[in-house]
């Protein structure tokens, strides 16, 4: 599809900032146009990576669940780690990836809370890896409009 979506967004951001915002009659309307430009910039960044970052994150969580299977002793949680860990994306549409992502993240919250209660080096190592994945997830999701 040409022109590239990234080219379209770049032009949209430029037009909102340079052509439209300065001509709007009030500071409030100008501010709204500049915010739309920021959102368009973010949408451009997300468009290219949307499927990739979701697939990467889902896979990272599945690896954590697999590792946890040797540490978690609670039968119910263990069963769900194995069941959800086998959950695969049936499509690479972003909405489908998001559905799997939400299921995995819900279980990751539960796993993290459980691991915090376990003693031993294995539990601490898994906990550290969960924190590392949290940090990695924020790196994957970072946008240039973010302040930190």
């Amino acid at each position, binding site marked *: 599809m040409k022109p590239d979506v990234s080219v379209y967004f770049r032009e949209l951001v430029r037009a909102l900032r340079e052509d439209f915002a300065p001509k709007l009659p*009030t*500071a*409030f309307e*100008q*501010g*709204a146009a500049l*915010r*739309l430009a*920021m*959102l368009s910039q*973010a949408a451009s960044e997300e468009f290219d990576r949307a499927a990739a970052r979701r697939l990467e994150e889902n896979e990272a969580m599945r690896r954590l669940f697999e590792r946890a299977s040797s540490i978690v002793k609670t039968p119910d949680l263990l069963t769900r780690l194995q069941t959800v860990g086998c959950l695969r994306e049936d499509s690479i549409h972003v909405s489908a990836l*998001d559905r799997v*992502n*939400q299921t995995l*993240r*819900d279980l*990751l*919250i539960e796993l*993290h*809370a459980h691991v*915090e209660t376990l003693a031993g080096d294995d539990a601490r190592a898994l906990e550290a890896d969960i*924190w*590392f994945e*949290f*940090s*990695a997830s*924020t*790196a994957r*999701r*970072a*946008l240039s*409009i*973010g*302040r*930190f």
Partner: protein
Amino acid sequence: MGRLEEALASYLTRHFGHAVRVESLDRIPVGASRETYRFVMRADREAELTARRMILRLDPPTSLIETDRRTEYAAIRAFHGSDVPVPELLLIEEDPEALGASFIVMQEIVGGEAAPYRLIEPPYRANLETTGQHKWSILGSIAKTDPAACGLDRVLPPVAAEDCWRQELQRWETMLDADELEPQPIQRAAIRWMKRNPPPPAQRISVVHGDYRTGNLLVSDTGAVIGVLDWEMAHLGDPLEDLAWSINRVWCFRKDERRGGMLPKDEAIAIWEKSSGLAVDADALRWWELLACLKGQAIWISATKEYQTGATHDPLMALAGWMQVNSQDRATLELMGRLSHGIST
């Protein structure tokens, strides 16, 4: 003349008992919890003709934060005339009959800039250290104000020193529970940590502004803070809550270590300590900084929900989700010593 101008003029004429004209009504891009308008109020009364620049704060259909206009009115009135600069209030109207929503009218503080993206540019940029001195000194003044002496103990709900943390944690966790559109594993981990490691009781019960950040200050071109705005989240509590919110990472407008775009964290804290007369316990402040992250995240997520569900079309609400949520999570990780800087972004 627009419909809102006409309705406001009609209301003010009835309120004052003489003809009042409203001119140049213009919505301004400040305040996320109220619609804010600037206008000129002209009163024709016998030989006296007066023109005053005023501000109208109107309750919106949706906002970042559900707040109480009476709280804002009482807090501004309590600090008027003190060393905490606030606008002069004219009136509060809680009956939505006149303008379709409740509202407050107050004097405009002329010559001030609040937009952070303008404050980090000339002519304000050169004076940002001075502004930072004012900013945290004024926050110290708020912290040392006796709520009983300024009458706010009769307006704001009381809280025991040992309950401040629990009250705020419960408030923002409840909002997160109600409004999250997707799982929040980082905030859930922070909540568990905060419950396991509560801070000590507040050193004193103070008036907490509740949203003390650069965007709620009016700054002159010489760098002086000439107005503290948006008091609708004011409450009684631990003064560290305000300090922590003011140094939140998401307010680093220059994308560096300067908090509020003005001063390094340690300098901001030192100014606050000197002004408030209170000593900062580093561990207690860290707890309150984490609470500030949760509070921020609850607010951004709530705004995101408003946009997602179509309750608002304001792009500010969408920006809360795209610009703030991830930064707030990273700030949380940093405070917990879990932010891995080796991961490229």
